[in-house]
């Protein structure tokens, strides 16, 4: 009986609990564990790679170290309580997780938030994007051995986190979005501080441009590494900046008609034709700049008015099914909500997270690459473990 690579992988994966063994040497090649606690993984992802010398024969990611069963928990909570859970999916851009779920509930109930709430939602959504991506912009340097960028990233990201905190009360988990609107209005003086912070973020982007994008070592380590062709990206469901770096001109902020405020702004969707690690970095850098422009325009055009629509005191969502997706910092995030009309929570809530699909491409992408590039590629795909495992 011949044993296929796939069966070997299955065997090794089934031994996942035995983390004491970090590698074992056999006749043909070597099996190496990357993680669960490797600094290149944002959280506890484990990747088993089979090596022939320095080259990867196959790779098998083992998620699940952070599986919290949110889809089951959503079924036993009511709609208002679900937002607390889903804050913790992509914990670097928490507010962006809440929006599509709340929009899904609103769509089923047939209500829409007032314009001011839509604007503030969009501002906080883009803040979440900056908080999420700016860490990536610095972290990518660390994975290549450059320590300075990540300190700059933490320094400037703090301004955005402070703004999120002063508006919502939570640095990481705002839990601010409500069915029909928002919990509170923005505090006084917030808009002015916000504009200052956006200028800081833009100068941070310029610094990253100088430090990394223009750096010869950085370019050599990322150009032509980990190329994802367009059709492969679509088959795997790769979305967000990773897809746009493969030349897919698709951004749900522009392409989906949602009751949010992007349609009132002048901004650009950046794509890159190369599909390599460099392109993924470059696209995210441009997106951070665009996000600061969007926030500034929304701050200028912020309409007055109420921040919540009239909703019943006790939320009851009518029977129905709906899928709402938005362009989150990591890619397309969507909630397929099935309501059975009872006063509790959703009957079924399928959470479609971007990192899950973005990482499912890893077995294909890592074939034949060299070990040092494994880290670059993983870092450039940029995933959050809570977003894979849910």
């Amino acid at each position, binding site marked *: 009986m011949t044993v296929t690579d796939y069966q070997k992988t299955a065997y090794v994966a089934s031994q996942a609990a035995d983390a004491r063994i970090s590698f074992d040497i056999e006749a043909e090649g070597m099996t190496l564990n990357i993680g669960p606690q490797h600094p290149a993984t944002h959280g506890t992802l484990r990747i088993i790679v089979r090596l022939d010398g320095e080259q990867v024969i196959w790779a098998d990611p083992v998620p699940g170290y952070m599986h919290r069963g949110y889809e089951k928990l959503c079924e036993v909570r009511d709609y208002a309580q679900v937002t607390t859970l889903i804050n913790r999916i992509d914990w670097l851009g928490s507010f962006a997780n809440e929006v599509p779920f709340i929009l899904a509930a609103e769509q089923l109930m*047939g209500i829409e938030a007032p314009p001011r709430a839509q604007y503030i939602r969009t501002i906080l959504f883009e803040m979440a994007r900056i908080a999420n991506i700016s860490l990536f912009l610095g972290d990518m340097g660390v994975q290549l051995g450059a320590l300075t960028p990540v300190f700059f990233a933490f320094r400037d990201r703090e301004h955005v986190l402070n703004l999120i905190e002063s508006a919502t009360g939570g640095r990481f988990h705002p839990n601010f979005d409500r069915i029909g609107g928002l919990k509170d209005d923005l505090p006084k003086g917030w808009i002015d501080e916000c504009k200052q912070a956006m200028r800081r973020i833009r100068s941070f982007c310029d610094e990253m441009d100088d430090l990394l994008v223009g750096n010869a070592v950085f370019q050599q380590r990322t150009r032509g590494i980990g190329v994802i062709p367009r059709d492969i990206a679509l088959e795997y*469901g790769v979305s967000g900046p990773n897809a746009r770096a493969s030349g897919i001109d698709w951004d749900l902020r522009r392409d989906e008609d949602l009751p949010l405020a992007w349609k009132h702004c002048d901004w650009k969707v950046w794509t890159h034709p190369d599909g390599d690690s460099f392109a993924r970095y470059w696209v995210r850098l441009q997106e951070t700049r665009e996000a600061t422009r969007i926030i500034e325009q929304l701050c200028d055009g912020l309409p007055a008015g109420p921040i919540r629509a009239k909703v019943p005191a006790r939320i009851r969502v009518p029977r129905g099914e709906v*899928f709402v997706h938005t362009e989150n910092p990591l890619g397309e995030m969507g909630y397929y909500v099935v309501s059975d009309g009872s006063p*509790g929570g959703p009957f079924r809530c399928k959470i*479609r997270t971007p990192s899950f699909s973005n990482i499912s491409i890893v077995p294909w992408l890592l074939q034949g690459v060299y070990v040092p590039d494994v880290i670059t590629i993983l870092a450039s795909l940029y995933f959050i473990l809570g977003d894979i495992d849910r």
Partner: protein
Amino acid sequence: MSPEAESPEATDVVVAEPEAETSPPTERHGQMVAALRDALGDGVIEHAYSAVDAWVRVRPDAWFEAGRVCKERLGLSYLCFVSGIDWKQAPDLGATKRWDPDAEPTEDPGDGPGRWTTGVGGGETRFQVFARLYDVTRHVGLTLKVDAGDGLDGAPKAASWVPLFRGADWHEREAWEMYGLEFDGHPGLRHLYLPGEFEGFPLRKDFPLLAREVKPWPGLVNVEGLPGEDEPTESGEADGADA
């Protein structure tokens, strides 16, 4: 909160069933459904529209072909997700959902066919597989559904989409471990999240959620002292303060 406030009578009102849409939300949605009906013949059992979306339910033997037509002829080349759903209403969940810890569990709906209600697009079996595909150039999506069986004699089944969409691999592995759905043609259904020796299918409605069994849900306190049932209130300023 008094038990009367949460009585079943109080919960059986107000739910406004939205009118079923009969016309497609956009021209493209109508074209896609027509093309699927054209290509699959009676393989398409039912289709449904909402104000923004479209659903198509196909026969189990047409599931793979439906995916192929969508991908190759309709331009729906982006795989959003593949997942499963269990339409059985869990007996204990009824009580939990009414927020009443002392309520009698609702009657067990049983396992036989026809003892559950399915959603948009209809359905005849307890388990369904549903998938969502998207067209990144025309910006339209479509949800496909297929009946997978009741799970009474053997595991519920559907054809695998891995030969069409490589990304279906992980999605189907997840559906397999969470619902016990089997996918014919999948290269290797093995655990994705859970440890290898895990028994049971957590997202099935009859799989108990241990945390709720051992301790009442503390979130119950949040609903105390709300204003009168189902009265729409001006919730901008005073949520409950005026009650």
